[in-house]
């Protein structure tokens, strides 16, 4: 690149040498040239570019006025006509990390400026923005400042030049959840056997597929008084009203149905369908109580065994659900039930 790369660097109030927590509520500001870590960034550029300006903002100010702060920072940024925005690294600082992600995303989308951020992979900003922004995993310690800045420069220059980036672990960025087809010399069977042999030899090996990570869930405490409790029925067996008016998918679900059952003593097979590509739905279609025990719950309600049966059944189809979608569906259902004062749930799974 004949022209020197013009870089704007984003920092929080601390790294911009304004002050610590007591200055965390300062609004957006800027200064020409590099500040603090920006000097190391300038060195990492090895003459290929120049840190033309440093933008900064207090962590609390950004967290509380994200929209205004972003708009103001972009307004200042554009005056320097940068080719590239580098934000951070923010390490384990959550507010700073979120600000770095937000400003990079906004610069890319609204100004068409290439952007790279740096932060620890556990930083809240990484979870929020790793799909939209290349985020270099800095680790949680400032000890990694220099190598992180070098990675930021390397990835930034590749983005600018249109050079395809390598895999996350090669380039040091946090995986963006993108799968690419690649050609390999060995077919999957041979690679699997190689991996097994490596494992048997006790040598380190790496799976080609990242196993999904399940977050730890704290169990609810026991129901103390069933006779006053509101109990809801939820199923992943694909129960929908006849004709499936909400168009719930039979597989790979992205949504759930809400079926009002107030005053209903039984589920009439004529009024319901079962939409699910993962099991033979013939028995459930014959009698929906085989997947959702509404009849029994209504009896127990009338007998006073439970306080009340919740007014709606929530259902989704559990076949081949992506963990991400299933989590979102589960959380949405749980939020609804919680705000409706439900105390317990029976979830039937097919």
């Amino acid at each position, binding site marked *: 690149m004949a022209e020197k790369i013009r870089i704007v660097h984003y920092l929080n109030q601390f790294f911009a040498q304004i002050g610590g927590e007591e200055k965390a509520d300062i609004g957006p500001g800027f200064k020409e040239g590099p500040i603090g870590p920006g000097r190391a960034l300038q060195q990492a550029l090895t003459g290929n570019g120049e840190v033309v300006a440093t933008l900064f903002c207090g962590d609390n100010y950004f967290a509380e006025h994200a929209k205004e702060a972003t708009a103001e920072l972009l307004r200042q940024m554009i005056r320097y006509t940068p080719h590239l925005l580098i934000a951070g690294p923010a390490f384990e600082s959550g507010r700073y990390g979120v600000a770095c992600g937000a400003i990079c995303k906004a610069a890319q989308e609204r100004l068409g400026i290439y952007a790279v951020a740096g932060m620890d992979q556990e930083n809240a900003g990484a979870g929020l923005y790793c799909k939209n922004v290349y985020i270099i995993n800095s680790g949680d310690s400032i000890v990694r400042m220099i190598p992180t800045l070098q990675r930021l420069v390397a990835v930034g220059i590749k983005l600018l030049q249109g050079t395809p980036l390598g895999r996350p672990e090669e380039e040091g960025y946090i995986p963006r959840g993108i799968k690419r087809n690649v050609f390999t010399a060995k077919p999957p069977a041979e690679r699997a056997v190689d991996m097994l042999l490596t494992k048997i030899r006790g040598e380190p090996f790496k799976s080609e597929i990242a196993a999904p990570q*399940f*977050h*730890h*869930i*704290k*169990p609810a*405490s*026991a*129901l*103390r008084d*069933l006779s006053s409790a509101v*109990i809801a029925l939820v199923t992943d*067996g694909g129960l929908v009203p006849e004709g499936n008016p909400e168009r719930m998918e039979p597989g790979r679900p992205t949504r759930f149905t809400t079926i009002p059952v107030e005053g209903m003593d039984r589920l009439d097979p004529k009024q319901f369908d079962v939409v699910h590509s993962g*099991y*033979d*739905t*013939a*028995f*459930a279609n*014959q*009698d929906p*109580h*085989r*997947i*959702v*025990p509404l*009849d*029994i*719950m209504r*009896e*127990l309600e009338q007998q006073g*065994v*439970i306080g009340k049966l919740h007014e709606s059944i929530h259902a989704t189809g559990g076949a081949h659900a992506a963990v991400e979608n299933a989590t979102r569906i589960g959380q949405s259902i749980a939020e609804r039930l919680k705000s409706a004062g439900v105390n*317990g749930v*029976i979830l*039937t*799974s*097919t």
Partner: protein
Amino acid sequence: MIPVAKEVGSVRAMGSGGIVSPTGNPDLPPEKEKDFRRELVLRALKILQEDVRE
């Protein structure tokens, strides 16, 4: 499917009537099937009233 439920963090899980009829059993006559379902539901309600460890 209990191992799957446990794997994803469900701590209150119990066996059921099977994949195609978790709260039923198509081989039973209707009244018996309903009794079977009642037992399952009562067991589920009992589990909700128990403290569980993570």
